[in-house]
């Protein structure tokens, strides 16, 4: 690569700034390859660059094409698509209203208990008053067993928190994938 070619690629890179990084480097890499092929073909660099046209114009063509979204076959404007979208959006909307806060609360509370319980277990072992460990029937964990018992309880809570987090993530992914499928346009990403 000589100076003129480097300058051309720099100019191109600068004008590709509206594009994501991978999109930009891919474009520059391909043009760089084109210049090298032309040079290997015995053409002077100036002629190869002239053939490519103005670097700014070329970059703009990439940017313009990137923002040109493609309608998917049949997805736009059909009645069944409209009805299906409405049912899906309202149905999952109502469902999410319950599922999302419940799972979020479960995850948060279980996570909090998983952290706090072992601390309380230690405190109770050393006789700090006011900490009750036992069942509702009045049975209490012996003081010496406070810490091990708290660990068992905390582990259970940790599993619950983890499960809640996974469920919430899975649920959101599922819903978002559904929304994406309903879009009348294909995502512009590769």
């Amino acid at each position, binding site marked *: 690569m000589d100076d003129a070619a480097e300058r051309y690629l720099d100019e191109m890179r600068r004008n590709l700034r509206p594009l994501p990084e991978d999109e930009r480097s*891919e*474009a520059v*890499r*391909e*043009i*760089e*390859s*084109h210049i*090298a*092929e*032309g040079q*290997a*073909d015995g053409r002077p660099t100036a002629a190869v660059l002239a*053939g*490519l*046209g103005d670097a700014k*114009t*070329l970059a703009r*063509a*990439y940017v*313009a*094409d*990137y923002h*040109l979204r*493609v309608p998917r076959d049949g997805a736009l404007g059909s009645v069944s698509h409209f009805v299906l979208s409405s049912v899906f959006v309202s149905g999952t909307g109502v469902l999410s209203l319950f599922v999302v806060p419940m799972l979020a609360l479960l995850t948060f509370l279980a996570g909090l208990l998983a952290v706090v319980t072992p601390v309380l277990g230690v405190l109770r072992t050393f006789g700090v008053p006011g900490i009750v460990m036992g069942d509702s029937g009045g049975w209490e964990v012996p003081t010496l067993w406070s810490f091990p018992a708290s660990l068992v309880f905390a582990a259970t809570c940790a599993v619950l928190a983890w499960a809640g987090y996974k469920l919430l993530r899975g649920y959101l992914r599922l819903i978002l994938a559904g929304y994406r499928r309903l879009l009348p346009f*294909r995502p*512009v990403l*590769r």
Partner: protein
Amino acid sequence: MALVRAGEWSSQIRRGTLELCVLALIASKPRYGYDLVTALERWEPLATTEGTVYPLLRRLQREGKVEASWRESAAGPPRKYYQLTPYGGGLLERMTADWAELSEAVRESLSTGKEAKSHG
């Protein structure tokens, strides 16, 4: 003014047909950009600014009509090879049929125009 208009018109026609030609050339064998550009240069009316082919290729790839892979070349830097996807292949078939129909119709309408002129 009329000349400028005619120039604009031809460049629009070319832009529309370039996609068809690019797809057809890729269908014959996997090609990299430079190869494609030199192949297009064989036909003078198709020899556009070489740069315009690259954004077009990028869009065809994004639309799933072609797929691309970088391959090492014996001499020089790696090349980006393009080949048709099944979707692109089907599209090319339909476009080719449409083009045949359209060019036939245009030819007929032009010759009708000529006949009318010579008779009148």
